[in-house]
């Protein structure tokens, strides 16, 4: 084969194109460390940094590439599946290390997100990915962010070593139901994926136990694990997707579940639906995910508004919930508890915190909310404030209408 004759630039194009369908690009949530005393290169300071944005609105924080896009699996939704005629390439370990360091030195990136098609065996693939991370950390003193995608049935010792170098590890669950995986990713075994996540959770918890000898905890995957689900490739409803997420959060303490609206890929499999899910659906799923994790909502509360288990594309899920539960409103912002305030459409966690802190010192009016950056148009109907009561606004039949979005120009396709 003449694979190795392709230039580095050409292969970079192929192997980043192959990696772009993975939505995760986070570089946050890890430990603080830097190179000022240790020498070397790089730092992580808690908050992630997005170094660029592509015209698809996605942030570019990490060098997100595949080690190779050769793959022995044949997952229908994936650009790299074995039955696709996409151009193939591979990097050497040294090349990935070089690219990461040189990109980092120019401040293009926060670090590396390395994934790979599965070549030969799972262990062989995982071993090469671990080598990249080891080289970066030990040979080059690299203190930037490293995210490795793990291969479900790789040997435990490889996962353990990966966890010593990586800030985050992830395995993609891909589809919300076992039957969906069986249909579209016949080589993947959902049980194995869950077991890998369970193993990783136990390893992370074990590393966090202070040992008898020292109070210092072992550094092991400090930014935790995450996963991705593809939305719209199978027929799963939003409720099914969100229930799957809640099981992943509860069972394996995932930091994030990423939702990726299925996107047309070059040389697509004919088994896939021809209709592309609206990008808005992905956005609504993220909003619902947030309501579940930070606003005290139950998945069933969020998804029960419609019989088909789909979220309303035209309004955010909190507003949809509030309109379906008008008996709970209006809420007095000067008296109600935090949990109740969090359910008011248009108020985020930060605003609620500011309200709780501010109302200890003075009674809050609509103007106060406005100065906190709240859209009065959105909250007015749902709240009572000093000098303001919505009267019958909450009962008016055309309240839904008030929140309808103006029709927008259709997106591509």
């Amino acid at each position, binding site marked *: 084969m003449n694979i190795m004759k392709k230039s580095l*630039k050409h292969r970079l194009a192929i192997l980043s194109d192959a990696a772009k369908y993975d939505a995760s690009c986070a570089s946050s949530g890890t430990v603080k460390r830097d190179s000022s005393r240790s020498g070397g290169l790089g730092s992580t300071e808690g908050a992630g*940094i997005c170094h660029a944005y592509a015209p698809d609105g996605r942030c570019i924080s990490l060098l997100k590439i595949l080690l190779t896009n050769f793959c022995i699996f*044949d997952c229908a939704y994936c650009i790299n599946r074995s039955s696709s005629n996409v151009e193939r390439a591979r990097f050497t370990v040294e090349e990935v290390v070089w690219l990461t360091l040189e990109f980092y030195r120019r401040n293009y990136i926060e670090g590396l997100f390395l994934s790979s098609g599965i070549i030969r065996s799972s262990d062989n693939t995982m071993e090469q990915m671990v080598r990249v991370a080891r080289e970066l950390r030990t040979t080059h003193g690299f203190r930037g962010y490293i995210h490795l995608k793990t291969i479900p049935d790789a040997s435990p010792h490889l996962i353990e070593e990966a966890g010593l170098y990586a800030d985050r590890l992830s395995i993609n669950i891909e589809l919300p139901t076992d039957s969906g995986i069986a249909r579209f990713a016949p080589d993947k075994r959902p049980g194995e994926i869950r077991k890998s996540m369970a193993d990783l959770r136990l390893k992370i918890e074990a590393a966090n136990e202070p040992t008898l000898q020292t109070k210092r905890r072992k550094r092991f995957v400090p930014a935790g694990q995450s996963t991705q689900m593809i939305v719209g490739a199978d027929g799963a409803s939003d409720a099914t997707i969100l229930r799957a997420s809640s099981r992943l959060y509860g069972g394996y303490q995932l930091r994030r579940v990423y939702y990726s609206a299925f996107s047309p890929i070059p040389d697509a499999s004919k088994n896939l639906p021809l209709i592309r899910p609206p990008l808005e659906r992905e956005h609504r799923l993220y909003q619902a995910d947030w309501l579940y994790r930070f606003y005290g909502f139950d998945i069933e509360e969020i998804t029960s508004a419609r019989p088909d288990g789909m979220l309303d594309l035209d309004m955010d899920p909190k507003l949809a919930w509030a309109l379906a539960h008008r008996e709970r409103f209006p809420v007095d912002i000067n008296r109600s508890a935090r949990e109740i305030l969090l359910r008011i459409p248009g108020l985020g966690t930060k605003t609620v915190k500011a309200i709780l802190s*501010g109302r200890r010192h003075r009674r809050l009016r609509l103007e106060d909310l406005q*100065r906190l950056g709240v859209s009065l148009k959105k909250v007015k109907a749902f709240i009572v404030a000093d000098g303001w009561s919505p009267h019958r606004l909450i009962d008016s039949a055309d309240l839904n209408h008030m929140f309808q979005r103006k029709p927008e120009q259709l997106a591509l396709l």
Partner: protein
Amino acid sequence: MRSVILEGRGDFIEWRDAARRLLSHGIEPNDVMWSDAAGASDMLGLSIPDASEAANGSHAVTATERFIDLAETVICHSSPARFGLLYRILSRMQSDKSLLNVASDEDVAAVLKLEKSVRRDSHKMKAFVRFKEVVHQEARARRQFVAWFEPDHFIVERVAPFFQRRFTDMDWIIATPRGSMMWDGQNLVTSREPAEKSTASDTTDDLWRTYYASIFNPARLKLKAMRAEMPKKYWKNLPEAVLIPELVGNAERSVMEMRQRQPTMPPLFHDRLQEATTLRISGDHETPVPGSLEDLGSEARRCTRCPLHCNATQTVFGEGPADARVMFVGEQPGDQEDLAGRPFVGPAGKVFDNALAEVGIDRRNVYVTNAVKHFKYVPRGKRRIHQKPNAGEIEACKWWLRQEIDLVKPQLVVALGATALASLTGRQGRLTDVRGVLMPLDGTRSLLATVHPSYLLRLPDLERQHLEIKRFHADLRLVAEAQGA
């Protein structure tokens, strides 16, 4: 009216000294006109501060830690209004210490907005500075880089330590119209003097542009989202931004082409792989002896007899010697058991282990399993709440328990809790009616029923718990005796 002219290039100390002096003399915020050196030339005709007021006055001036932190940030803002706003807030805080807690106060809201904008500017500087390597003819110990950036505010001194912590092993200069910073491995030097834009170029920028173009997904154009986070004003100093118009312009066409392309035949290696995979799967596994306990366990791992398998991590099969004389049957695996794939390893497992040790039973000599082999739960935030298995699930899983009993052939089966009892006897009787009494099971063996260890964990009353643990131990002593017999 007093006029104070500050240099105003992000120096907190000059403002603090002036503010302290004014406030110590009790000067009202409305009586001070603040301006910076750049704006001062427009204000001819206003009075210069009185030299006799150089010393502090008699009023004590205090400031909270939060205020100092806020002021240090806000002073970097380029708005001429920042000095007066901070002074007004400091003045109000002399009688109202908690003012900053009221984020919706007009002054506080205004100052927080300035703070946010300085933080954002600093964050964007950390994100959008682009270093270009300076290549020298002769070899040097350290590599050298330069960057040009145009911040909105006076943030050079604020952000410099970040770059030092990050780019320790290289020399660099970041030049801006509002000052510059320099690191040579020993000293971090900053200056407030405006710098000139460098004309350096770097060939690696070309690789970066390749990456930028390839990671972009033309099927999901979201220009507004991009511009919100990477406003156009930054584009001129970002090497990748020159590609944006072209990427956007071609997006529609490239997606159309992608869709119109006919599905292709799989490449040759796909077929070879499919064959190889089929071979690998059939020949890969060591198949356990048919009809053995191991064989049963691996069969159970693929169990789909009831829907519980979809949500659980794995089948938690029984474990212990294949010829154990005693078999313990619990209800179902819990959170920890589900993760580890082994029965009785969570909190209830600890209670169970302690009890066994107390009565002198070695867990390695007994067989431990559950009536239901998959964890049933409902997710609640970050936790999973255990749910009792229903009759259908117990019935479906009985298939496995029966075969475990048939293979292990224990003399005594211990039912831990009502679910196990129901599964073993088929009766929904009350546990208390039969607890602690040896009963016949299937004619050939005995059955003993006692509580499930998790019951002991749920008792809120310590005294009661103590008593119940004693009773549990007493039941297990019967087991120890039977085992020894």
